């Protein structure tokens, strides 16, 4: 048995099993995230939300998925066929492959690589291609405008996100995600780096094109933005990609600022709970905030969005980065 596990086929089999063990719960999580969002928003707006399919509407995601599967896929006549299909596929694939480096517990990452943070940043910076390709290939002016907006928006917010991540890395001294979580065993970075935490969270809202920054699909002016021409499974892929991205960004926030799998206090009732449960609970907290923001805030105007990214977040995070470096150097807290 050991000889089999050490052989290339055995390694491959283990990797496939690990991937499935991560992806299946993730996709179920994505399905129930759509239901949770509708239920939470309904509660905030004093409605009931979906409650017909199954007990408490619990089978609603599967009914939706089945409906999407059975609809006809329409490809517009003037569209660039290959790219039109590639766009949604790229969006979902990128949202899923980023999970390869996420540590769910101490040592529970499929690939515990040296440059985990850079990998996450690289994958999230690729996310814009799915949208741009979809918008261009649709050959429709609404889709194209949505794609342009989204491209400019994601590139802008990536800059301040990068600076926030650098600030965290200064306090850790490693690019490895497991090391980042271990460095928070005394105090979560959300406390000493509180303003960075807020900036990072708002940037993740912009990065996932979620309200109040969902200008790429603003119904009131662009119908549905880059998704106008999509139907059936191609639309479902976008939908899944968006929610998988939300969960991914929440996982990133959890790892960088909320102490990953660590319990809030390392004392008796808290450290009985296993690490993955804490990790999932923290992700749920972030996701709830995503929905809360959506139910609360009106959409930003595009110039306000750009101003917030370039004129407020960028200088502030740069200043805070320099301040952090100074404090760490003067107090001698720099990690070796």
């Amino acid at each position: 048995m050991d000889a089999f596990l050490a052989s290339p086929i055995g390694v491959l089999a283990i990797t496939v099993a690990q991937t499935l063990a991560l992806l299946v719960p993730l996709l179920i999580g994505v399905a129930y995230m759509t239901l949770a969002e509708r239920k939470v928003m309904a509660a905030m707006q004093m409605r009931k939300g979906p409650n017909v399919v199954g007990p408490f509407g619990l089978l609603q995601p599967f009914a939706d998925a089945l409906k999407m599967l059975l609809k006809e896929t329409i490809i517009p006549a003037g569209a660039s066929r290959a790219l039109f299909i590639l766009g949604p596929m790229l969006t979902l694939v990128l949202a899923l492959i980023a999970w390869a480096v996420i540590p769910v517990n101490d040592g529970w990452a499929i690939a515990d690589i040296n440059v985990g943070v850079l990998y996450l940043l690289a994958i999230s910076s690729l996310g814009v291609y799915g949208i741009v390709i979809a918008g261009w290939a649709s050959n429709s002016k609404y889709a194209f405008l949505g794609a342009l907006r989204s491209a400019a928006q994601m590139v802008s917010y990536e800059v301040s996100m990068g600076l926030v991540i650098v600030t965290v890395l200064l306090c850790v001294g490693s690019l490895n995600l497991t090391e980042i979580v271990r460095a928070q065993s005394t105090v979560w970075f959300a406390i000493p780096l509180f303003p960075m935490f807020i900036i990072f969270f708002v940037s993740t809202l912009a990065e996932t094109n979620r309200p109040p920054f969902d200008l790429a699909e603003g119904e009131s002016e662009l119908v549905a933005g880059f998704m106008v021409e999509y139907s059936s499974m191609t639309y479902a892929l976008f939908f899944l990609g968006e929610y998988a991205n939300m969960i991914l960004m929440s996982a990133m926030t959890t790892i960088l600022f909320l102490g990953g799998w660590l319990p809030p206090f390392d004392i008796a009732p808290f450290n009985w709970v296993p690490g993955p449960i804490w990790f999932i609970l923290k992700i749920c907290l972030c996701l709830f905030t995503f929905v809360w923001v959506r139910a609360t805030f009106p959409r930003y105007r595009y110039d306000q969005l750009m101003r917030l990214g370039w004129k407020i977040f960028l200088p502030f995070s740069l200043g805070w980065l320099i301040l952090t470096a100074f404090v760490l150097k003067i107090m001698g807290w720099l990690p070796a």
Partner: protein
Amino acid sequence: MIAALAFYVFAAILIASAVMVVTSRNPVHSVLFLILAFFNASALFLLAGAEFLAMILVIVYVGAVAVLFLFIVMMLDIDFSRLREGFQRYAPIGAVIGAILFLELLFVFGSWQFAPEANSLRMNAAPETGISNTAALGQLIYTDYIFLFQVAGLILLVAMIGAIVLTLRDKPANSRRQDIAVQVARGEAVTLTAVPPRKGLAELGIVRRPLPAPPKPKAIHGHGHDDHGHGHDNHGHDDKHGGGHH
């Protein structure tokens, strides 16, 4: 064995997509193939053990530069028939220039000599020193060669300021400016108040002030007083005129 196989797959895709960049008819497809080429190059970096460079290549080139590139190419309105118009006429000149460049490259590579120990270092980016690639690069750039690094930064700064100076135009004096704080401020006009029936706001002691007037555009010539007086004069004159008519 698997590493060698992966190398040949990535290298083959890299070369094929690089060829497609120059041969594909649609410029957007060209840019997308360029992105695929970048991506495979970063995979080759990974295979060589340079994981930091691989990730930086994806973040900087694929994630930022190529997005802007794609952005511009998508918005250009390119007329393909005009692009190919003089192809036959200019082909000989292009061929001559290409041949000269190719010969130069041949001469350069013909006299290229490898150090005797170079062969052992090929595909071996991270010597076994126990420090990671990222730390080693940081040591080199920020400690050993910090002054050269700073000079490179200054040169980029000068280029940036130059670009800004070239595109900066004086704003016309009467252009209106946005004051975001005024725009998003919550004034009394939008507060929600429970108003007692048949009594109105005055009973609660609330007097609705008018919204603050938007800032007036600056006068171009700067003698607003004269204009003001003149306006009053006109007004009086009109009144008199109107009375006479009746």
